[in-house]
């Protein structure tokens, strides 16, 4: 498991709608053992929005962001406020 900080970093992602894109997104979180502290999902038919809070250093979180961004049906990943 990656180093934890006790301070969660929020990441938001927009992806294609439907269960398949969400499934792939969740599998990636689990597959890469991302330290997910909290997860909120708003699944729609056209688009799904997920907010995750990662308990890891900022640099690690950015690496995870680029990994999620590379997924075929993820449209956008960003840090709220940035």
């Amino acid at each position, binding site marked *: 498991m990656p180093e934890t900080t006790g301070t969660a970093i929020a990441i938001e992602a927009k992806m294609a709608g439907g269960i398949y894109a969400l499934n792939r997104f969740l599998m990636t979180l689990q597959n890469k053992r991302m330290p997910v502290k909290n997860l909120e999902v708003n699944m729609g038919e056209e688009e799904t929005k997920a907010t995750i809070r990662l308990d890891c250093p900022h640099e690690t979180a950015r690496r995870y962001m680029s990994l999620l961004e*590379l997924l075929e049906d993820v449209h956008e990943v960003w840090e709220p406020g940035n």
Partner: protein
Amino acid sequence: MENTAHKADFDSFDNFDNFDNHPAIEYKPRIGSEAMCEALLDEGIEHLFGYPGGAIMPFYDALPDYPLKHVLTRHEQAAAHAADGYARATGEVGVCIATSGPGATNLVTGLATAMMDSVPMVAITGQVGRPAMGMDSFQETNVMGMALPFTKHSFLVEDPDELYPTIRRAFEIARSGRPGPVLVDVPKDVQFAACNDNGYRRLKEAVPPIASPGLEAAALLLKKAKKPIILAGHGVTLAGAELELVRLAEKTGTPVVTTLLGLSAISNDHPLYIGWPGMHGQASVNRAIDKCDLLFAVGMRFDDRITGNASKFAPNAKVIHIDIDPSELGKVVKPTVGITADAKAAMRGILGHLDSVEDNCASWREEIKKSQESEKMHEETARPEYGPIRIMDAIKEIAGDEVRLVTDVGQHQMWSAQFFKFTKKNSHITSGGLGTMGFALPAAMGVALAYPDEPVWVVAGDGGIQMNIQELATIRDMGLNIKVAILNNGYLGMVRQWQQFFHNRRYSSTPMTGPDYEIFAAAYGLAGKTIHPGGDIEEAVKWANETEGFAIVDFHIDSEANVYPMIPSGMSVSEMIEEHA
């Protein structure tokens, strides 16, 4: 697809003039399975490796009408490995086909193998019909879900009109950026359904930018370094950046080492090539990395078999890390300069910043050379003995410079990497990341189909060869030119070695028997030979090389021969186990 109705009309010029309005021409609606074949043809696919079954039958029904060459393997896992071998050897996307349920689950090991080594592949699976999905129907599995961790992307195509664009897109994903396998699962009724040509549209473009400040910074570090090392990985081969690698090394006088999958990215004859690091790499190479002040890592991911204890890896070095996958930068080793880019583009960019370079590392090269003297002497002493070094030498000498070596997984794989002299670009094919036993024989089928006139040798252990040995039937049917050297020690050798070192010689379930390979090959109508200790290795290799098509040589080697040196898992270069230590 040949249309005989059209052909007849071309017989006279008058008919040709009226071709567009000719009443005899009948257009039948295209169905899903035809769209699948058309997509494959439009991708320039020539060979497919697969195994038919209930849910993929419409595709197999359409297949004979298209100029696609299907290779019927004897197991779906072998189809995946053969497609993988084809892709690794050619740089093109390999294609494998299976039916639903067990056909698809049998592909998983092949998909995971390709995923770990970034091999572009498209797997097409049949699925039960849409009305039967989710009903625990006969031969139903959630293939798309199952494949998620082992693929770059996976599709389930439920709309027949989406078949053609999805398959085209699967190829695009497989080959773009960091390559990898993509799965397309197609329900049987979708394969039967009429569909329109929706054309092909790109869904998402991901062109990794090249950070020019990073390139300049990397060039500056290279100019200043006194003890630099270039560590080249599979990404160099995937990008076709072998020339750039050599130019960068020569321009800066930097010694080059490669990962296991990077072997053959630079000729072993090149004076700047010093070897191969990691768990079973040369001690001198591991020590050089330990001492270097700059590590230029390109197209590699700091696998644990390279780093051992990552916190103690290259402790004195600044690190330049170039990888096309941004998520690899900082994953294991924190780079001083990280560059997300294709290896070729990045090295070209860096070379552009290296107009004038002083050779700061002559004494460093001398230091490395001296540290390698005792190793080379030791190797020279062992060379004439019966064993792995002599077998590797014989294959190289007799099969020649054009030979491609496909290795399985285990001790023989490490001996091949250590002792075979790779001088031809992309001539080393092996399962590095996943370490899949049973990979070599079917992967070699893909290599041999891609290069039928070039020598292909498989080096395997007596464990791995038995995992996909049913493929001898495929090899015979296809008349493939493959030679096999089994390094037979009557054990699962690498596991036995670990048991010897770390489990007090408790050889639990590692002694292993197998068939008489000579008789076994004969049962398939193929040629085989057994060579016992003291036997004539060179004569046997020569015999195999001169045998038309397939030949297998079963070399019985020392049952307790070990691979040295060895850095135990998770440890550092200071804890390396060396021979006679």
